[in-house]
Structure formats: C-alpha cells, structure tokens
C-alpha cells in the first residue's frame, strides 16, 4: 500500500511539475503568439498593397501597427463575417479601405472551402476611374491543404496567377481551369484573366480544389463589393465548365403539365375557369420573367426558371413556377409546381415532374409516378415555411393519415414508395424550397 502511495505521489509530482513548466512557458510566449498573428496580418496587408509588376507600394502610409490599421477599417460586423456566398466562401470582418490619388484600395480577408478546411487569404482590389481590378492576393492559412500539392497555393508563381485580374474577368466570375499540366504561354494568361479564367494546372498539378477555393473566395469578395455598391455591375453566374446546351422546350408538354396542376389536389376540380388551351393563352398569364432564363437560385443550387405564371380566380391567386433541383450528379430534376394563395394563406397544390430522364430507372425515375408525386401535394404554409425535407428511413410504410401531419412540419415521406432514391426526392424538395424562397422574395408571402 505504502509503495503504491509513493509511486502515485511521484507520478503526481511529475505531472504537476510538467504542467507548471508548460504553463510558465505558455505565459511567457503568449504575448508573442498574439503579436505573431497581428504581425502576419500586417505583413500580408503590406504585401497586397504592392504593385504586382513593379513591386513598389501603391500607397504611401502602409499601416505598421494595429492602431493605424484600425483607422483604415471600412466595414465591420460584430459577427466576424461580412458576407457568405452561395458556395460557402466568406468575407471576414473587418475590411479595410485606403485612398490615394483618386484610387480606392479595398483590402478584404476572404476564405473558400478547400481540401481539408478553409483556405484564407487577404486580397486587395483597386478601384480607379470606375474600373475595379484585383491587385494581389496573399494566402494566410492553407495549413490543411495537402503538403506539396494544395499547399503550393502559397508559392509566388501560383499566387501570381491570381494577380491583376481586370473588371471584365471579375464580373464574369473567376473560375479555375481543369486541364492537367499543359504548358501555358505566359502571354496567354492575361487574356484568360479577362474572361475570368485563372490557369493554375501547370504550376499546381492535381490541386484543383484548393485553387477553386481561392477562386470562390475572390468571387465572394466581388459579390460583397457589388452589394456594398463599390462595383455596379451585373455579375454573371459562375457556370461549371463546360456549359451545358439548353434543351429545346416542348411547349405542349408544359401546357399539359400546367393544366394538370391547375386541378385542385383535394377536390379534383379545376382551380380556374378559363383553362389555358394553347401557348398564347399561357403567355397572357406570365407573371415574372427574366431574359437570363433564371428567376432565382437557392443556396442549394435549386433554380426557379423563367417564365412564371399567375392566374387569378375569385379571391384565389394561383402561381405556377418552373423549378429545378440539382441532383448533385446526373443533372437536374425539373418540375412545374402550383401554389394557391387564398385569404393570405399559401399552400402547395400540385407538382408535375417534367424531366427526370437522367434518374436511375426503377429508382429515381419513380418520381414520375402519381403515388410518389402526391406525397408532395397539398403542403400547407407552415410546412412550406419550415422548409421541405425528405425523410430518410428506408422502406418503412407510413400510415396515410400521418402524411398530412408530417406535411405541416415540412416533412415529405417518400421512402416507402421510392426506396433508395433520396437524392432525387431531395432535389424535388430543394426545388420547392427555392420556389418558396422566390415567392417570399417577390412579396407573395412574408
């Protein structure tokens, strides 16, 4: 017993001593740790305030300590985040602005989602005579990226591929090329930059994800500046390459589908008296349209396509939207959905799935069957507001009377009628959510 006690005591003494040693060192070092972080930021800011070609500073009074840096703060937010893009890229608070000789220099801390975590960088954008350009970028944190692959993003010859991107490039959305290891002549790089294409594959093989994270973060910065009114430009949606060709629309199919979803899901009667019988009838009911073809894109990539229709009958307003949910792989699930607004209460009436040709036959393709579609019918406002979700339990049979109470909560049960095709059902749910968000944006519901 005594021996055990002695052993335990010695062990405890060692633990204490080592704990003490480490805490002493920590307390001695901790001011340097913080200082190191600020020094890193200052160093990065000084770096991005240089002209990429000449290497000389573009402003005369570069901040040298925290105080002078704080004076240059432009926008800040107690949350720590100023803007989050649809791709999860962020603009962090605070952002800085420097003015010199009619130039406005914006310095933003941004991040994009990389391989193992966030890729954080500081970027500088110069606005001169109403033209914005990306000046320089300096990587802050890319420690999670694969050493030797993604971590190359910190190297000068890789970073420099992002330097000096003109406004035309910024507004078309920065994207990274994918061709593996082709040598690119340096003089071609600039013309690519004008189109928003950054070539990195030759200097950073096999690390597209890291480069794309940086591109996303730059796009977030541009979107943020646009939102703040610094850049007044029409931003283009960044399209994944290659751009898919638009299919021909078969108006007859759409007309038939619209007629079907104008039937009340409960009573089986038509909601409107003057049912459109040809395409011209439809055109007179157009509610919102957009030459781009897309009215709304949700954060999950679901879209509301142009045009949308509106019918009015008695006190009822019926909205018909062209929606599509992204499947992740295998493209989009397109559908037409009708909403009925009566006495300020909105409900989803019916949905008709248009294009599910790319779904797995026998699995996802079941979405076209009536018994599956009807699971999405008659969803009341509370369900719509809380966001439609699809359940995941595999193949449990759900009592029919329970379905309605699930719909109140926004839960659509499909697992019993469509086993193993959650992705397809979820794409439909996403697209309905996008439709609801769009209606909210247009003030149809609050």
């Amino acid at each position, binding site marked *: 017993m005594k021996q055990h006690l002695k052993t335990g005591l010695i062990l405890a003494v060692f633990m204490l001593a080592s*704990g003490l040693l480490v805490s002493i060192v920590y307390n001695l070092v901790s001011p340097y740790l913080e200082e190191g972080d600020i020094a890193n930021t200052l160093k990065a800011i000084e770096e991005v305030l240089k002209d990429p070609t000449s290497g000389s500073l573009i402003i005369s009074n570069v901040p040298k300590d925290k105080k002078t840096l704080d004076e240059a703060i432009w926008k800040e937010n107690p949350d720590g985040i100023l803007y989050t893009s649809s791709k999860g890229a962020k603009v962090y608070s605070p952002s800085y602005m420097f003015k010199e000789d009619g130039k406005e220099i914006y310095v933003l801390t941004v991040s994009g989602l990389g391989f193992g975590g966030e890729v954080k960088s500081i970027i500088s954008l110069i606005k001169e005579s109403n033209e914005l350009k990306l000046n320089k970028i300096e990587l802050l944190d890319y420690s999670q990226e694969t050493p030797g692959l993604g971590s190359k993003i910190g190297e000068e010859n890789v970073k420099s591929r992002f330097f000096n991107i003109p406004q035309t490039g910024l507004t078309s959305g920065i994207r990274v090329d994918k061709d593996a290891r082709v040598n690119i002549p340096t003089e071609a790089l600039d013309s690519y930059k004008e189109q928003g294409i950054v070539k990195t594959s030759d200097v950073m093989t096999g690390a597209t994800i890291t480069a794309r994270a940086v591109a996303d973060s730059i796009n977030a910065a541009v979107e943020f500046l646009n939102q703040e009114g610094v850049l007044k430009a029409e931003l283009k949606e960044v399209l994944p390459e290659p751009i898919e060709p638009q299919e021909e629309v078969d108006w007859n199919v759409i007309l038939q589908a619209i007629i079907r979803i104008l039937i009340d899901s409960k009573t089986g009667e038509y909601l409107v008296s003057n049912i459109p019988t040809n395409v011209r009838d439809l055109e007179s009911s157009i509610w919102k349209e957009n030459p781009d073809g897309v009215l709304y894109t949700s954060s999950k990539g679901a879209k509301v396509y142009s045009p949308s229709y509106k019918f009015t009958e008695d006190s009822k307003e019926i909205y018909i939207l062209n929606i599509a949910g992204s499947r992740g792989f295998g493209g989009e699930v397109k559908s037409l959905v009708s909403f009925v607004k009566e006495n300020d209460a909105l409900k989803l009436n019916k949905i008709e799935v248009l294009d599910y040709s790319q779904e797995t036959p026998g699995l996802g393709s079941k979405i076209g069957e009536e018994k599956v579609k009807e699971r999405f019918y008659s969803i009341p406002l509370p369900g719509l507001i809380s966001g439609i979700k699809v359940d995941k339990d595999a193949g449990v049979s759900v009592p029919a009377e329970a379905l309605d109470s699930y719909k109140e909560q926004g839960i659509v049960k499909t697992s019993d009628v469509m086993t193993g095709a959650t992705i397809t059902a979820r794409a439909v749910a996403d697209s309905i959510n996008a439709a609801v968000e769009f209606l909210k944006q247009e003030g149809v519901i609050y």
Partner: protein
Amino acid sequence: MNLVLLFISAALINNVLLSRFLGECPFLGISKSKDSAIGMGLAVIFVITLSGAITWFLNELLVFLGLEYLQTIVFILIIAVLVQFVELFLKKTSPSLYEALGIYLPLITTNCAILGMSLLNIRENYNFIEALINSFGSGCGFALALIIFSAIREKMQLNDVPKAFEGTALALVTVGLLSLAFMGFSGLV
C-alpha cells in the same frame, strides 16, 4: 452527404498512411503477414475511433478551462491509458477478440496515427459527428492500406531482389507505388 464525403476523403484520398504519413512504424513493422495486418488494422480502427471521440470531449473541457496548450500532454496520456483500459476490458469480456487483437494493442500507443488524428480533428474544427467519422474513416484507410500492402509483401518474399533493396528499402519503394495508386482517388471529392 457531406459525412459520406468526409469518410471517403479520410479513408482514401487523405489516407493516413499513404498521404498523411501517420503510423508508418507499425505499418512497416507489422505488414509482413496478412493475418497480423488484419488484426492490427481492426485494432487501429477500434482505438482510433474511440480516442477520436474521447479526445474531442477532452478538448472541449480544456478549452473551457483555458488550458488548450496542455493538449499534447493530456491527449497522449489519455491515449496510453485508453489503450491499457481497452486491453483489460477485452481480456475480461471477450477473450476471443482479445486473442485476435490483444498483442497489437500495446503497439498502438506509439502509433502516431492515433494522436495525429485526434489533433487533426481539433485543428480542423470538426464537430463531434465529423470528428467521429473522420477518425473512423482514417482507421478504415489505415486498415485498407495495411492489408493491401501485407498481401503484396507476402508475394514479394518469394522474389529475388537486388541485395541493396532487401528489407525496408524495397518495402518503401512498394509503398511509394501504392501511394501513387491512391493518388488516383484525389478526383473523387
């Protein structure tokens, strides 16, 4: 969906052995026969997941107390204790499992994959579920690489190789080729 991607990325793309370089010592030491590779692989999956979970909670506690700088010391001690405990527990409750994994457990304390994954979970700010999936995925990746490699090595023992390459040198070159093959997974996520 993200959790599935996390699992795939932990098991295949960022394979602990072939791309993160964690746990090489037991990898080179134990991979001479397929049976022991399977035993070791299972033991690692078990311990790495368990320690991933425990160290996650422990880190919350350390952050709460403001003692994050003691992370390394606390983690390695907990892992050492945990391994002992698992050994005792298996011995008492499941002798057959103990027989299969028992001899590999003491070797695991010095397996840097265990401590490494615990630290990585914290550094990447994973929540509990993500940490668990990441640890489990890494364990599976470890087992996979170990078993594949041991199968190759069993075959290689019959081959006539240049004298200079005998032993570890040839093993390393082989792992290099295996790692090259695993790089092909990097387009997956």
